């Protein structure tokens, strides 16, 4: 089965100002797409639209050549989204956090897999501590462990490199590249410069700032 996320004539207006307009996107399997632009250029908004969270926009989204409205359930079953906030409960341990995500994603309950996922993001020994006692970077790693734990082809990651140390950044970059090689696809915003590769594509936002009527 192929993998294709398309957007046609996407436009989004905020406070009488176009964040972007007439944006056409075609994202395929095996690609890493980096959304670039200055602060306030609508990167997060675009990712939220593309992950089906925002309804206040113009244009059409297609998932595998079907309009998103009709394939939403199917789309969500293939999506892994990581937002600004890590989505990690401070009062729960990393293991408990992952267990909830596993169930939410419809994956079978698998404790060894959760240990392995936490080990892959360098959290061995922290599995049973309340996440609130971990550092910001470690909490972010708990969230990133979902990439390992829950197999999904489409990753939409909003600033995943925030608060991660240098080793972690390198490991994450490697993980993104490996995902693309395996036939997955990654949509990412980041201030961190990704290493050039044939899989990498860039979308630039924020030439705009135009008047909404133009």
């Amino acid at each position, binding site marked *: 089965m192929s993998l294709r996320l398309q957007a046609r004539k996407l436009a989004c207006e905020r406070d009488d100002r176009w964040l972007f307009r007439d944006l056409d996107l075609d994202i395929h399997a095996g690609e890493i797409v980096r959304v670039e632009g200055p602060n306030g250029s609508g990167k997060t908004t675009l990712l939220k639209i593309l992950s089906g*969270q925002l309804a206040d926009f113009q244009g059409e989204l297609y998932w595998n050549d079907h309009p998103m409205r009709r394939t939403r359930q199917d789309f969500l079953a293939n999506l892994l989204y990581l937002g600004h906030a890590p989505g990690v409960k401070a009062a729960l341990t990393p293991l408990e956090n992952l267990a909830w995500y596993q169930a939410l994603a*419809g994956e079978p309950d698998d404790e060894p897999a959760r240990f392995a996922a936490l080990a892959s993001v360098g959290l061995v020994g922290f599995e049973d501590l309340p996440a609130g006692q971990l550092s910001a970077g470690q909490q972010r790693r708990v969230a990133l462990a979902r990439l390992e734990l829950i197999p999904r082809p489409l990753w939409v990651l909003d600033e995943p490199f925030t608060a991660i140390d240098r080793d972690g950044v390198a490991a994450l970059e490697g993980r993104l590249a490996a995902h693309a090689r395996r036939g997955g696809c990654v949509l990412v915003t980041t201030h961190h410069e990704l290493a050039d590769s044939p899989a990498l594509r860039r979308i630039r936002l924020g030439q705009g700032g135009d008047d909404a009527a133009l």
Partner: protein
Amino acid sequence: MPLFREPEGSAGVAIRATLKRDLVLMMRRRSEVLNPLVFFALVITLFPIGISPDPELLAAIAPGLLWVAALLAALLSLDSLFRSDYDDGSLEQLLLSPQPLPALALAKVAVHWLLTGLPLALMAPLLGIMLSLPAGSYAVLALSLALGSASLSLIGAIGAALTVGLSRGGVLLSLLVLPLYIPVLIFGAGAVQAAILGDGVSAHLAILGALLAVALSLAPWAIAASLRISING
């Protein structure tokens, strides 16, 4: 490796996991469970002090007092129903899961009722003694509160979902939700009143049950729609 996924029909697993997660979370923040109960007891303490310690007078107003105080106590904990999930980003993950959102929202509301409405219902007879509530109405008080507070949790969750994205949602939440609570209050307090007078209470309880049935069948969809709106900012 087959990357592409068909949607899986495991809503039950997700609902159970959400129930369990919220229960564990609330048990780790026990003060949040205890606060409404302490508030309930405090408000009930204020009334004899503010009005009169006369047992006859207190007995006359006890059903309404207990119901109003329990209703306000349940309202107190409503704001936090989705707030922490919203703040730490788990709410958007909940919305993006391929499971039916109304069912997941219902699981969260069920936990709220289990740890707020039900304890309040169990505690109310104790406070009833302090207000010299006539004998014979204690069981009805607890039962009507248990039944009614489930509707309150469901209706209140709509308001909580609508205001979760607002920085000062708390006061607005009470404004939105309290008028909608009135039918539950009328039949809940009415049931206790009827028990005191020796009338049949089955009609009252049946209506409370009907209200709960309506709330159960409509509120989850309204909560889900409201959460989707709130996540948009």
